[in-house]
């Protein structure tokens, strides 16, 4: 099941613009997915980097600086690779579809 989801993801229309946070340079984005689990991922999520939340990339690099919910946080690249984002303009329209997709694992 999980395998199928991963295989299909790139072909979903709403996922075409999705990139890992680690290779996004600057500006406003919306987080659409955080992969993996464990304490590091929880640490990231509870700082506000979780699905559906807007993020601002303040400084790219390793570690990078994000602005989330009015505070700045430093995140190392290793974790940023687990976060998938899309540009803020595109996010609004696709949000519901994205949520559904994440929940059910199918279109």
């Amino acid at each position, binding site marked *: 099941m999980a395998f199928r989801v991963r295989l299909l993801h790139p072909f979903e229309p709403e996922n075409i613009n999705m990139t890992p946070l680690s290779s996004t340079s600057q500006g406003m984005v919306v987080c659409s997915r955080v992969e993996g689990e464990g304490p590091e991922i929880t640490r990231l999520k509870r700082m506000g980097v979780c699905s559906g939340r807007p993020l601002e990339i303040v400084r790219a*690099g390793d570690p990078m600086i994000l602005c989330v919910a009015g505070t700045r946080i430093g995140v190392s690249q290793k974790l940023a690779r687990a976060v998938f984002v899309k540009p803020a303009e595109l996010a609004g329209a696709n949000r519901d579809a994205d949520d559904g997709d994440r929940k059910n694992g199918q279109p």
Partner: protein
Amino acid sequence: MTAADILPVLHDSRSANNGALKTAVVALVGNPNAGKTSLFNRLTGLRAKTANYPGITVDLRKGRMRLSGRDLELIDLPGLYSLDALSPEEHVARSTLLGEIEGRAVPDAIVLVVDATHLARNLTLASEILDLRLPTVVALNLIDAADAADITIDVGQLAMELSCPVVPVSARTGQGIDDLREMMARLLAEQLPKPTVEHTSCTAGCHGCTFAARYEWAERVTEGIAQIPHTHGRRTAAIDQYLTNPIWGTLAFLSLMLGVFYLIFSLADVPMTLIDEGFGRLATVAEGLIPTGPVNGLLWVPAVGALAMGFFVLGYRLAGISWTWRSGVAAAGVAALVSMLPADDFRSLVVNGVIGGVGGILVFLPQICILFFFICLLEDSGYMARAAFVMERLMRVVGLPGKAFVPMLSAHACAIPGIMAARVIEDWRDRLVTILVLPLLTCSARLPVYAMIAALLFGDSPQKAALVFVGAYSLGIVATLATAFALKKSLLRGDAVPLVIELPPYRLPSLRNALLTVVDRASVFVRNAGTIILLISVGLWALASYPKLPEGAGSPGAASDVAGLAAAATEAKQARIEQPAAWTGQTRAQEALAYSFAGRLGRLFEPIFEPLGFDWRINVGVISSFAAREVVVSTLAIMYGMGEDAPDQQETLVETLRRQKRPDGSPVFTTATCLSLLTFYVLAMQCLPTQAVTRRETGSWKWSFFQLGYMTLLAYSVSFVVYQTAAAFGYA
């Protein structure tokens, strides 16, 4: 969700307890940097003490305060981002709130500290805490800073949204503190309703990440009640432009740390001298007070026994040891033993064992305090997070997080504040590795030893002597990083936990808070490390004093009981012959030390340390500096027949050491032996206070012993290689 499920049960037990007259417990909860500690200091003043929960040491500050005739205990909990408890500190905060700590119920009330300048983030945690449904009052802190930033907050509306009372306060200016007290009193008198609202209403969608739902709720509330100007946070952003830059940020960090170090060493100089002199004078006074002639046993024994017992009462109290039958018997036994001592021995015990031992630790207190002070200022100003940020990449190479860098720098003054500063590292394994490797860094107690060896090697050339120091420091750093790397690849396998760190806004730190923190940490150090050190220094005193050299020592009959001893005494005598005749008092000290257990151990260890190029007298130095490495200098002075004051005149000490010959006529302190001794002192543990603190911070002696074991092994093997290599090149 889970918390809410179990809470009603816990809550009942709490109300049942309330019937009896007990002091209410109120916990301060909130995000890191929300100002909990500042508020705690405001509310309790100086009536605070540091408490400690079982397991890994997490210091919790507790304080008493009186509220409308009722005593209550206030607890300053560590900062939280959520109840998930991802660090030992958060775990303690969580278990306190959920009443999971044995023997402690859920707190009777909570003061939820919310940073008014970061409402959205703080309300996210607030929603989780309010869901616990404990009696809560919200302290909307930093209201002065919010005013200054033109943030306007509708407090009434906020109270409605949270369904609990909200009091705007400023821990900095004292504004609103009285209102907060009054609200706390009403809360405890159960005049206020408990929060009832479910804060993660499903308006934003009930799927996916629970944090997202809380954030959305918090942002919606914030939008409704607060007006935040666009310029908010500009200043911090502008400073961060430089301080988080990979190049400028690193440079700024290094120069700042150099500055701090310069200040530590220059500011600590005067108090250290004063403490040293003070203890010297105290020793003289004590020496004068204790009678020299024969004493009346009927008076002496009970008097000394009572004195020793009083000492134990004080010591147990300071260290927080309770009086069980075991600790009681130990105290009474030791007191009885001490009261049997002849007056001469008792004097030596008081002067050399107790006063010398305590003084030896307290000289480092100024450095430790100054270090804590600066660390606290840097933490409060918000800079520490930037330091961790810029160091992250470099430190990750050896498998440690960026946060390990500040402890490592601190350890260059003293390993103890370094180990205590390692608490900023959230991940337990990363923290443990940092603690384990810190004592390899060159602390200031090693400097006298380096100085002695540098003078021995290159007394004539200051440049070359400076190279000895550079080499020793570098060896320490390389050993630290390599050991950390090795530990992360073997015993405590795993990469450093990747960085996620809040970069808080820059704030002007408060001097008062910094001073209170220093007092707090220093007292923890003195009470915990101090008592253990005292015990050990008395133990080492006994090792170096017993058995006593019989009267007329040196005569063959006196030393005949142990085979090697005759030789020891003869050799000691030989050394004496080389000295001017005026030093007979000192030679007696030398012979006494050679005759004692310490001297015998030195001989016993001869085959072990032989491959490192140490002779038995150096071994005595190594053994006696087991508790504190700087002691080796004065021990060597005694062992080579110079008296205890010799280290003050370094010239003579070095001259004398240079003249020493082995039985075969070759010099003792060859280049190879000096290098090997230097290496040994760079790498060996030899600091009991550090071990006591390691035990405290890791919660078990296991890690202290591991530290001692691996460092001794490392020191031995590297010194072995150094000596054998140097000897092979003809430097022996």
